[in-house]
């Protein structure tokens, strides 16, 4: 479905995840963060950039992998994105929800 955010039209699925990463830009990221009650700091952006790079390289994401990334540990990840961190971070980053159980 279509959704207008930050003055632009994007395509999202029923859970609100963007379906076309090419439509994403920083202002959309900011607006999606506000929707998810996160105020983005430079630390958040480091993580968002990391997961976007992993996505572009087609590396599947999991909590364990994030913890071993060297970018952030699991504890801080949960502090920065308190509710469902991997889900929230991928949603803000404009990439699909990871199909991971661990």
């Amino acid at each position, binding site marked *: 479905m279509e959704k207008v955010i930050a003055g632009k039209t994007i395509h999202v699925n029923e859970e609100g995840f963007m379906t076309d990463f090419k439509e994403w830009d920083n202002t959309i990221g900011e607006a999606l963060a506000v929707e998810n009650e996160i105020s983005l700091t430079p630390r958040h952006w480091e993580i968002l950039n990391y997961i976007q790079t992993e996505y572009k390289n087609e590396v599947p994401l*999991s*909590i*364990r*992998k994030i*913890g071993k990334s060297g970018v952030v*540990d*699991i*504890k801080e990840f*949960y502090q920065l994105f308190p*509710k*469902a*961190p*991997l*889900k929230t971070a991928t949603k803000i980053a404009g990439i699909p929800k990871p199909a991971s*159980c*661990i």
Partner: protein
Amino acid sequence: MSENKGEIKKMMIILSKATLENVYAAFVLANGARMEGIEAEMFFTFFGLEAVHKKKMNSLHIATVGNPAMHIPTLVGGLPGMEALATTMMKKEMAKIDMPEVSEFLEILADSGVRMWACKLAMDMFHFKKEDLFEGVEEVITVGDFYKKSEGEGVHMLFI
């Protein structure tokens, strides 16, 4: 009465077994809850205590006897070395799907905010001390204490 539309807010997971497949099931469910923004607490009782016992946690086995999904005759499953063999095979498969070892999984759970408790009765029975357990286990508590912690709306309890 307020209506919460069936939303799951907290999972209380009781682990009473030490077979690898049960331990992993409990861990994946607890971790999966946290990943979805659901609170999770674990209560380790009876053999489940081995999953948080520092000296035992990384040498847990899967069950080859009394486990029909193994598809081997019970007698064969009972032969010496069968459990170790089956466990090695399963661990190899788990490594392929990025499944951590028990000790690392416990760290992930603790860092993800899963609260862990040990059962007082079982601790006494096995003569375990709090120091024998993984540091993430906050306290040794009674069943009554555990029920108290389970109060609230949208709390679900699971026995493994």
